[in-house]
């Protein structure tokens, strides 16, 4: 028995699939059996489209978290980018407005990164400040107003399909592949693991840790802005309160996917699993018509259960001291 268990965990170490995927698949299976509509193509593509927002942010968040930092300002950046992209459309045209939106995310990422680098203040505090302040910028710009995209082409894009999948799902999956490649195959990606895994060692080895972190903050800023824009194409509008609490859900998805809060470990593939797990749970519970109050309890309980199972799987056969 112990033998098989050991060889099993040995296997799980060799496989590249992060453990969260087991849970994601189990959930999918469960809802397929218990509900009528879950396994329909239309529903599955809905899930992909709905998770694409948190998913895009999570791609960037994974990078900064592997790097040993965190970004709490992503929710506010979502709102800022969406407001700019929609609000400026009538003045400067759709594409330039989108460019400004993306630019704002990258610029704020740069600002966050520079502050973290130069002042040495913990990223948690820097981005917590930004979370409050950037929301302020949103309200300064929008004056509390929601904006509405004048041409339906904008929202048509958000609702459109390409090759049988929602376009936004393609965008998300495309960037997932790109980021997976960046984190596994490029020098920049590997250095992110080094800096997060042992900052001192990275410094000793001559990695330009500061600059490196700034780039990663720009990456997460870009993804948060992109998520804001794709979300606004789904709505054809923007609202100043967009993205509230997204930072918490994004971090949850990323950590569920196996990324360490302390940095140095994690993967884009795991994050994808974490994002889908949350999306499937929400969708499945909608389909099962779980009352709103109970959804909160079940979601909370399941998050904890996933951690528990993950730990059991990882611990079996480990030779480390139980300390």
């Amino acid at each position, binding site marked *: 028995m112990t033998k098989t268990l050991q060889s099993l965990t040995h296997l799980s170490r060799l496989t590249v699939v992060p453990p969260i995927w087991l849970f994601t698949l189990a959930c999918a299976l469960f809802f397929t059996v218990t509900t009528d509509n879950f396994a329909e193509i239309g529903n599955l593509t809905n899930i992909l489209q709905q998770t694409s927002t948190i998913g895009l942010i999570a791609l960037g968040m994974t990078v900064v978290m592997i790097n040993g930092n965190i970004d709490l300002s992503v929710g506010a950046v979502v709102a800022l980018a969406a407001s700019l992209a929609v609000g400026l459309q009538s003045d400067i045209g759709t594409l330039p407005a989108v460019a400004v939106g993306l630019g704002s995310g990258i610029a704020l990422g740069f600002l966050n990164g520079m502050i973290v680098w130069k002042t040495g203040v913990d990223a948690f505090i820097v981005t917590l400040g930004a979370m409050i302040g950037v929301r302020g910028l949103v309200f300064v710009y929008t004056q509390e107003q929601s904006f509405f995209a004048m041409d339906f082409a904008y929202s048509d894009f958000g609702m459109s399909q390409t090759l049988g999948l929602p376009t936004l799902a393609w965008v998300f999956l495309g960037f997932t592949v790109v980021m997976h490649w960046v984190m596994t195959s490029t020098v920049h990606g590997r250095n992110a693991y080094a800096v997060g895994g042992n900052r001192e060692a990275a410094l*000793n*080895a*001559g990695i330009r840790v500061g600059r490196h972190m700034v780039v990663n903050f720009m990456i997460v800023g870009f993804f948060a802005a992109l998520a804001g824009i794709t979300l606004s194409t789904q709505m054809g509008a923007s609202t100043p309160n967009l993205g509230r609490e997204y930072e918490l859900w994004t971090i949850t998805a990323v950590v569920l996917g196996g990324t360490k809060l302390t940095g*140095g470990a994690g993967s884009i593939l795991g994050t994808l699993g974490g994002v889908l797990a949350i999306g499937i749970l929400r969708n499945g519970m909608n389909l099962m018509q779980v009352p709103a109050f109970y959804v909160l309890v079940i979601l909370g309980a399941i998050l904890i259960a996933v951690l528990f199972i993950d730990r059991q799987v990882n611990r079996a056969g480990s030779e480390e001291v139980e300390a």
Partner: protein
Amino acid sequence: MTAHPAAIHSAAELDDLRRRAPLLKLDGITKTFPGVVALDDVSLEVRAGEVHALLGENGAGKSTLMKILAGNHQANRGQIHLEGEVVHFDNPMQAKEAGIVLIHQELSLVPEMSVAENIFLGALPRGMFGTVKWRVLHAVAAEILKTLGCKFSPRDKVGRLSIANRQMVEIARALVFTPKVVVFDEPTASLTDAEKVVLFEIIRGLTKKGVGVVYISHRMDEIFTLSDRLTVLRDGKVRGTLETSETSEDGVTQLMIGRSLEGRTKRAAGAFGPVALEVKGLTCGSLYHDVSFQVRKGEVVGMYGLVGAGRTEVAETLFGLRTPDAGEIRIDGEVVAIDAPPAAIARGLALVPESRKEQGLVLGMSCRDNMSMAKLSGVTGRFGFLKPRAEQAIYDEYAKTLDLRAPGPAALAVNLSGGNQQKVVIGKWLATDPEILILDEPTRGIDVGSKSEIHDLIRRLAASGLAVLVISSEMPEIMGVSDRVLALYHGRIAGDFDAETLTEDRLVQAISGL
């Protein structure tokens, strides 16, 4: 990085190189930390192609000097000349670019990454679009590991390697490029003899290419086999630079600690008390099997074996950190169930663990707080309030016994030199007044003076009736301090010897399964 010509020089050329102006010159370096003058006007010259040994007690300032050279610290005063030019390093990168490689005393690795990536950290071979050239990386890394005689693969995760193997990875970094100066800061602290031999060959290879090597160690035999010249530091000051061939171990020791060491005090056998600790048929998964032995009161039992033989695991089991699958542990003849360290401590056990940084110390706490940590109940008064005086008394007593060199009781453990950190850990466990003391690699990284003091201390403790189990990878230590020696081979007891009649050959045979 500026690569140095990798030509092998002839003996004549080398001599010539050595005679020329020094490759590296540290001039009047002074460095203070809050409350400590770590270095006071230190000057040092390293010639191309020489091995220059750096010696000194724990806390003498060796690592600090080298960290200044490598850009980790900045000197308050003084200059660095490299090939005749004044250089200034604000950070490690600049030093690395100038051709200086430091193999850190405290390993500087990323545990989650592969061996190859760690060897090339900060210098991964770059392909198109910034991709990593994995094939080149793994091929070169494999090549380097082969020269080092390492058995593990470049793809292994560093976090899963033993401490010794991690040390080899750290050393491998010196071979990626041909640098101008390589500093080894106690590279052998956790290496076995076989690995040491390889390392020495590597170092000689480097010097043949005209590289200047600085070598720090507390082991005299190494210094004398390897180095051309040596410099002794004491209390942050240079006490002298000598040609190695013109000095003796005793002379160096004298310079280092201001006195010479007496020989070992061997006590008469047969004066031991009753059996204090008895282990029967202890088995734990794949780690070790059917381990049985006894330790009597007043006896020092040494446990020797190759890295990975399972010694640490046996100790951890005794201390309640691992649950055995089978077997029993008796203390004073009574079978005990020890499921956690508090139970072990209550039974009079103490364990000085193998890794001081990870298991021994809370680095962000003061020395005093660390020392009383295993004995909190003993320094607690009414309503759970701590008694500061009792804590201070513990600190004072063991700082004195162990000759601790710390700026004071409130100094943070992280700011102590490696050897002094080890003393804090030992002090912490002595403070619990144990009856059975287990020490896992107690003198790793400790200077000769302190080491002999610790050995004396172990003897004295045993003489006062303690049962002591010492785990060490150093043959002389095991032979010198023990009354009896257990040899472990692949998790099994391969021999139980009386130290008096034991020969080194016999012990080596036993731990190799012969």
